[in-house]
């Protein structure tokens, strides 16, 4: 599990910590109320240079609100955010100069062409990005947008619109990049293309924070995951650690068509109570177990047909949903 900064350290001290990569995003104690509801409840995030942090959680968990606080779109009611050592509230211009954002919706400027969008975005930063014209030419090539440079963004396919959004987010060479569900609605080929772009941002030393609903994407792209639920951090760490913490080591799939499934579910409830929460998926039941629970179950139901597999991030979502219920 990645080291979590201590509460007593200042953001600048954390950034300067020897022996590690620079902390480029450092958010602590974030609290946000919207519509009378506490949607972010004491969340802290860190992301280092060359690291991808994945934010996961069911709808309403507070992912987008947390992200919006981190890139300065929303003001936190409590807590602080530092980007590359610049406090977002105290020194917003310096902090915002160091970050780039790809929002969930396409927010490119429909009055400009693809290339003009990159130029115009560059104009929203001071000091002006160095060698902006060359940078834009390089981005057009890197993001495969060259042949659409003079087209209206509205005419692009979904995948290319996302490419443009990410290119806009990095046109000023930020240190930290926030990607809010960057592949939602894309076909598999376009998703892979976006993944490659995200990897290239990491290789360039940027800190990348992304939210996603796609579990394979989170596991594949993220160096570290942070699972949010009801505005709080439910679990964090590598994908397998998070799964172990929240779901368990194994998932047993019981088929409803099996005559003994009801009996098995009753046995599970009797023996493990609240410690094990089966989730119903269509006509099957997914039951998370640790090794000890699994061996007890196997011994008790030797003649039952079932499947055993390692947990996936889909199980994580199911587990979180069960907890919420």
């Amino acid at each position, binding site marked *: 599990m990645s080291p979590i900064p201590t509460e007593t350290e200042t953001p600048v001290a954390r950034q300067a910590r020897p022996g590690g990569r620079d902390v480029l995003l450092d958010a602590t104690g974030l609290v946000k109320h919207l519509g009378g509801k506490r949607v972010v409840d004491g969340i802290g995030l860190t992301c280092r240079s060359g690291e991808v942090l994945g934010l996961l959680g069911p709808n309403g968990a507070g992912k987008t609100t947390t992200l919006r606080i981190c890139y300065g779109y929303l*003001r936190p009611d409590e807590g602080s955010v530092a980007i590359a050592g610049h406090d977002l509230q105290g020194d917003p*211009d310096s902090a915002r*100069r160091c970050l780039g954002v790809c*929002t969930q919706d396409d927010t490119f400027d429909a009055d400009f062409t693809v290339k003009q969008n990159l130029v*115009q975005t560059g*104009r929203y930063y001071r000091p002006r990005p160095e060698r902006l014209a060359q940078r834009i030419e390089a981005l057009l090539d890197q993001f495969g947008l060259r042949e659409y440079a003079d087209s209206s963004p509205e005419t692009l396919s979904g995948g290319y619109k996302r490419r443009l959004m990410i290119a806009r987010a990095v046109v000023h060479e930020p240190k930290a990049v926030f990607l809010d569900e960057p592949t939602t609605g894309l076909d598999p080929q376009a998703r892979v293309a976006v993944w490659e772009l995200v990897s290239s941002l990491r290789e360039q030393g940027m800190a990348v924070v992304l939210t996603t609903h796609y579990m394979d994407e989170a596991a594949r792209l993220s160096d570290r995951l942070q699972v949010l639920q009801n505005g709080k951090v439910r679990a964090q760490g590598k994908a397998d650690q998070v799964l172990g913490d929240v779901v368990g080591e194994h998932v047993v799939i019981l088929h409803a068509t099996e005559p003994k499934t009801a009996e098995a579910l009753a046995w599970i409830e009797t023996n493990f109570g609240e410690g094990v929460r089966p989730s119903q998926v269509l006509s099957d039941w997914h039951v998370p177990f640790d090794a000890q629970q699994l061996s007890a179950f196997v011994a008790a139901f030797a003649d039952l047909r079932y499947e055993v597999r390692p947990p996936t991030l889909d199980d994580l979502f199911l587990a979180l949903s069960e907890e919420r219920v």
Partner: protein
Amino acid sequence: MKRFIPAFQWQSRAVLMRHLRVHVRNWHTMLVPPIFEPLILLLAFGVGLGRQIEGFVWQGLELDYLRYLAPGMLAYTAFMIAFFQALFGAFVRMHFQKSWEGQLTTMVRLEHVVWGEALWAAAYATGYAVVLGLVLSVFGLTGYLDLQWQWLPVVVPLLFLCALAFSAVGLFFTAVVPTIDHMSLPFFLVIMPIAFSSSTYFPLPDVVVLREVVLLNPLHHLSEGLRWLLVAGEWTWHLLAAAGLCVLVIFLFVPLDQRLLRKRIFGEQ
């Protein structure tokens, strides 16, 4: 004062320049309305209707209706174009084009977007009024219109100030109207009453209550002030009142716009 400092920051200029670039790129189509709209109005009302009006008297002066109309049109243009641009243009950019959201993820903050939109609407309306001034000059060159032409360039800064005030009012409605379908309400409930109690197109009837009410109408002072200056060559208190009221409107509405738009866009108080 912190609500007003962003007006002078580069981010507000960046927003203003973004709108300017879009409009300059379409200059050939953008120039059509400011040329032909006043041309049609001047021909239809100034020349056409004006011929039917004999013995038109304003403030004891007998003059052609076209001479009465021209300064009023300048004032009305600064008022209406600024308001319209700040209402419709800003609403479309905020709600449909999502260009505000794109800007707000950069170094541009909401206060810059508000000031950028207000400054753009004011600049656009002033440009519109300048083109109208050129159209009026053509009428002057052809002998249809006689004004104190030397004062025409002098009133441009005042037109900009008033347009800025009206754009701040427009942004207020951008912040509060629920949908674009509700845009007609501010026109019927606010704009038309202001416009028709302002001496832009006709002198107000001599009704005591109306006389008192129009003292608070900056558009009335602007049109009367411009008329005294451009028709009679006299600087009157109306110009000062127009400037003062517009500054007051700016000081009242811009902070209100920022607060209401913050609530609308971010859901924050």
